């Protein structure tokens, strides 16, 4: 690099890009760039769908410090939460479709979130799911029991609160536990990819979006239809979650990998089955509501 040993002689340095090749974690600033763009392009290029990258995605905040938009506001201010709503309509649509149709090798967080997790999707998808379950359950109960003489229709409003508790704890408390678990493991195994809490919440929230049409389908009182749609929804959302979290655990101890992956899948199955059995009564139920 430097031609002479004279410290006062101006030294020609190589381009920032070449410097970055040597050490990918280094932060480089070049005078003529416009700040965030070269860094982001490099990141995006590094995450091509078929590239088996071992780069730590991490919660490094060098990118955030370089990009002017994400200021580190304290968490009790309004601006802190505003940066999680920095998305547009087509982004939300892409993310929902991406979570419904998993593609092998496409990691949801890498491909769709791209360091911009949002809170809009998880929150409103959860609320939609809560009301979809409550309303569909109510309609399906009505359709199943309507012929019976003792049946009195009730709106069953209490079930909304129960549904809300179950779904919000699945979509928000479980990512908290998973994030803590991944953080603990990444302290022990150095080369683990780790996701930020918001990215995990985003992945879980968007993975629930396949359940909303499935739950609406469950209104029709045909058991084979319900089981088909539950299996399809489970496969799709489970595979999205598994493919998302696979890079985070694959370098770990095999037993831990199996434990975490099976935990994710099992809780997903539990949620689906629990919703179905609690909110939707089957035509074989012969106990009319004695009201």
């Amino acid at each position: 690099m430097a031609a002479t040993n004279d410290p006062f002689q101006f030294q020609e340095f190589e381009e920032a890009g070449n410097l970055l090749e040597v050490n990918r974690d280094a932060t480089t600033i070049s005078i003529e760039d416009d700040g965030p763009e070269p860094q982001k392009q490099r990141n995006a290029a590094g995450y091509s769908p078929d590239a088996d990258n071992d780069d730590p995605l991490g919660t490094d905040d060098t990118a955030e410090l370089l990009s002017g938009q994400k200021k580190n506001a304290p968490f009790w201010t309004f601006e802190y939460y505003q940066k999680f709503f920095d998305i547009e309509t087509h982004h939300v649509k892409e993310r929902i479709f991406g979570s419904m149709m998993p593609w092998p090798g496409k990691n949801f967080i890498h491909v769709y979130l791209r360091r911009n997790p949002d809170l809009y999707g998880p929150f409103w998808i959860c609320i939609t799911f809560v009301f979809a379950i409550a309303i569909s359950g109510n309609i399906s109960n009505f359709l199943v029991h309507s012929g019976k003489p003792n049946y009195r229709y009730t709106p069953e409003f209490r079930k909304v609160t129960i549904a809300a508790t179950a779904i919000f704890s699945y979509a928000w408390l479980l990512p908290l536990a998973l994030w803590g678990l991944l953080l603990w493991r990444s302290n022990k195994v150095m080369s683990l990819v780790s996701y930020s809490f918001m990215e995990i919440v985003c992945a879980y929230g968007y993975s629930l979006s396949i359940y909303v049409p499935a739950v609406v389908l469950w209104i029709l009182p045909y058991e084979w239809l319900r089981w088909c749609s539950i299996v399809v929804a489970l496969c799709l959302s489970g595979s999205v979650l598994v493919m998302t979290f696979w890079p985070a655990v694959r370098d770990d101890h095999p037993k831990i990998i199996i434990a975490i992956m099976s935990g994710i899948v099992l809780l997903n199955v539990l949620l689906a089955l629990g919703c179905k059995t609690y909110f939707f009564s089957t035509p074989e139920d012969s106990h009319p509501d004695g009201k």
Partner: protein
Amino acid sequence: MAAAEDSRPFAGLSDVSISEDIPVEGDISVPVGSSRRDDELSTLDEPVKETILRDLRAVGKKFVHVLYPKRSSALLRDWDLWGPLLLCVTLALLLQGGAADSDNQGGPQFAEVFVIIWFGSIIITLNSKLLGGTISFFQSLCVLGYCIMPLTVAMAVCRLVLLGVTGSVGFAVRLAVVTVSFGWSTFASTAFLTDSQPPNRKALVVYPVFLFYFVISWMVLTFSPSQ
């Protein structure tokens, strides 16, 4: 010399002297506009009936704006929360007396309706502000609350229908009425709210409003009377 003297203003006054022992006295009084002060304080002096009627007229004017939603800024400029409170209490009262009122699988209680309407409005307002909307917090609450009016009217109509007609004909009538008023509410509130949003996020703001009125319509439609 003379011409120069003549051209100076007040040329002839240079030899006027004022003796110092002429007292200068008089009265300086500022004309107090006593009638004007009475106008400013007049809202304290007016009869209570006037004050109440003025507020009622403002609320009534906003009801008319909801009935014929145009892109006017009157609803936004002078927001008030009397109308939403009135509508919310009316709707919650009309939703009482339903089937299985004392059981735990009945319809929504008064407090639940209240919480849904007010918390729902607050969450939608926060959502639109976080997405970069320029509307203020209380203006948005005001708009969302006033646009519940078609659904309150539909609830009253549904209760009347339930008194007379039962069975599937009654249900069809109620469904039609509730659907129309749901569309009216959503259309009216989006007419007021979408102007303040950036254009690439309008759908993100409209969807929660749609969900909010859908849930309220569901509560109105599934009201079943105790028999």
